[in-house]
């Protein structure tokens, strides 16, 4: 696969050219630090960011998206047209989360055509991490600072230059289109690997329980009410999370004209599972937090073969009560280890 070295001084010109034919989505400065935005002025792109406050999932799974539009009883589907978008400079954790969203929206018996339309047109350039963030733990959940899952091109900031490595055919096409820089030398690729390895070393190692069945066996444990003691039932964790994908579907109309629209929803909200009868299968904050954690670390491994957490640490940053998924995992792991040593069931 192609690997090219791009002089940083040329980056703006190259991206400007790219932006003429593609929709360019990249991190820009935001009051929360950095955020992804459709970029018209490439000067606004900030590759010196650590990570964005919210994830990149909005690009393939918008918070608000019309599914159908209708007038006077006649409905029409509204599949998005997203020709040739490039997500430039996303972190490897977010790129990896796309593979998980793929599994949900494209896997199984039915493909979600809205997600598919956006995803098919997206080329992902992931910016490898030279420095871990304060709440990062990707290496504990199967990722790494230069993980290529979900990405088409891996970019690495090597001070004066940007190393671009195509890792998929689509990435190859993009590098060809960029038509810039010079072929990278082996030493530069080596340097990029070293940077990522050093970043990985500096990252906290969180013990993550991987036995889906053993985790499920903690379901009735008192541990959960303890872990959820501070949970106030907002959706900050789920909405900031790159892999949380629950949604609602509602209709809005005015005089026969309107749309059926999907929007993000969260299992941490009390009405999420509320039946019309008033019965709620998850009536407490404890049940809801347990659902969120077990969904990621037990149910998803069961259904998709891997935990739905990429270790971005955003939920840790945003939880108003300071609930920390790393601590929850460590507690669960300790309990499971103790149980397996004692040879007894967790229940």
């Amino acid at each position, binding site marked *: 696969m192609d690997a090219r070295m791009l002089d940083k001084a040329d980056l703006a010109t190259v991206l400007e050219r790219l932006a003429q034919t593609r929709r360019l989505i990249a991190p820009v400065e935001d009051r929360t630090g950095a955020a992804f935005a459709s970029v018209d002025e490439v000067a606004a792109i900030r590759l010196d960011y650590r990570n964005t406050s919210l994830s990149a999932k909005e690009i393939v799974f918008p918070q*608000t998206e*019309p599914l159908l*539009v*209708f*007038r006077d009883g*006649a409905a*029409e589907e*509204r599949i998005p047209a997203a020709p040739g978008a490039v997500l430039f400079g996303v972190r490897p954790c977010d790129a990896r989360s796309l593979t998980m969203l793929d599994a949900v929206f494209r896997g199984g018996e039915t493909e979600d055509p809205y997600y598919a339309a956006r995803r098919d047109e997206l080329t992902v350039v992931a910016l490898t991490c030279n420095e871990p963030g304060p709440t990062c733990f990707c290496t504990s959940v199967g990722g790494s600072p230069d993980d290529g899952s979900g990405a088409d091109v891996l970019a690495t900031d090597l001070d004066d230059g940007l190393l671009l490595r195509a890792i998929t055919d689509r990435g190859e096409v993009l590098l060809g289109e960029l038509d810039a820089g010079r072929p990278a030398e082996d030493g530069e690729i080596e340097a990029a690997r070293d940077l990522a390895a050093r970043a990985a070393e500096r990252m906290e190692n969180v013990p993550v329980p991987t036995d889906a069945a053993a985790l499920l066996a903690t379901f009735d444990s008192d541990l959960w009410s303890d872990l959820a003691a501070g949970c106030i039932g907002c959706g900050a964790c789920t909405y900031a999370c790159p892999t949380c994908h629950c949604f609602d579907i509602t209709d*809005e*109309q*005015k005089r026969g*004209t*309107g*749309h059926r629209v999907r929007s993000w929803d969260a299992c941490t909200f009390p009405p999420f599972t509320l039946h019309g009868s008033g019965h709620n299968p998850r009536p407490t904050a404890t049940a809801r937090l347990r659902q969120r954690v077990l969904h990621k670390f037990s149910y998803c491994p069961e259904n998709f073969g891997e935990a739905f957490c990429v270790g971005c640490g955003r939920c840790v940053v945003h939880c108003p009560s300071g609930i920390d998924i790393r601590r929850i995992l460590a507690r669960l792991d300790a309990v499971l280890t103790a149980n397996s040593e004692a040879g007894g069931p967790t229940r």
Partner: protein
Amino acid sequence: MTETTGHRDDERGDWEPRIAAFLCNWCSYAGADLAGVSRIQYPPNVRVIRVPCSGRINPLFIVKALQSGMDGVLVSGCHPGDCHYISGNLYARRKFALMKSLLEYVGIEPDRVHFSWVSAAEGVRFAELLHTVVEAVREIGPATKMVKRIEAVP
């Protein structure tokens, strides 16, 4: 969402303000009724919503009316001291003062939302009030700020 439809044809020259009027059952609604049976002319721009008391007015009614595309809102109840429920309008008065102020603060035109007292005997006052409100809203033009846009089939 790029394509939107207006809540009506604002561009047309014959735009007439539409006013949602929340009237208390005992005074203002009766006042409006009196204006009607007395054949006092008042502008036809008003859509009356009868409520038991001005104290029943949830401030959300007002914002919701604007979101739904009404050009103006009028809230009216009994004069202080005349409330059928003794003090509903007096509690409401505090809420209304805050609401009016908050809406102006965030940039809603002051003339979008009106509060006034009208008694059951004040048919003339009701007609005049409506006239004042309609003209004030006409002056500032169609509501756009809070109006919800819903995407439609192109």
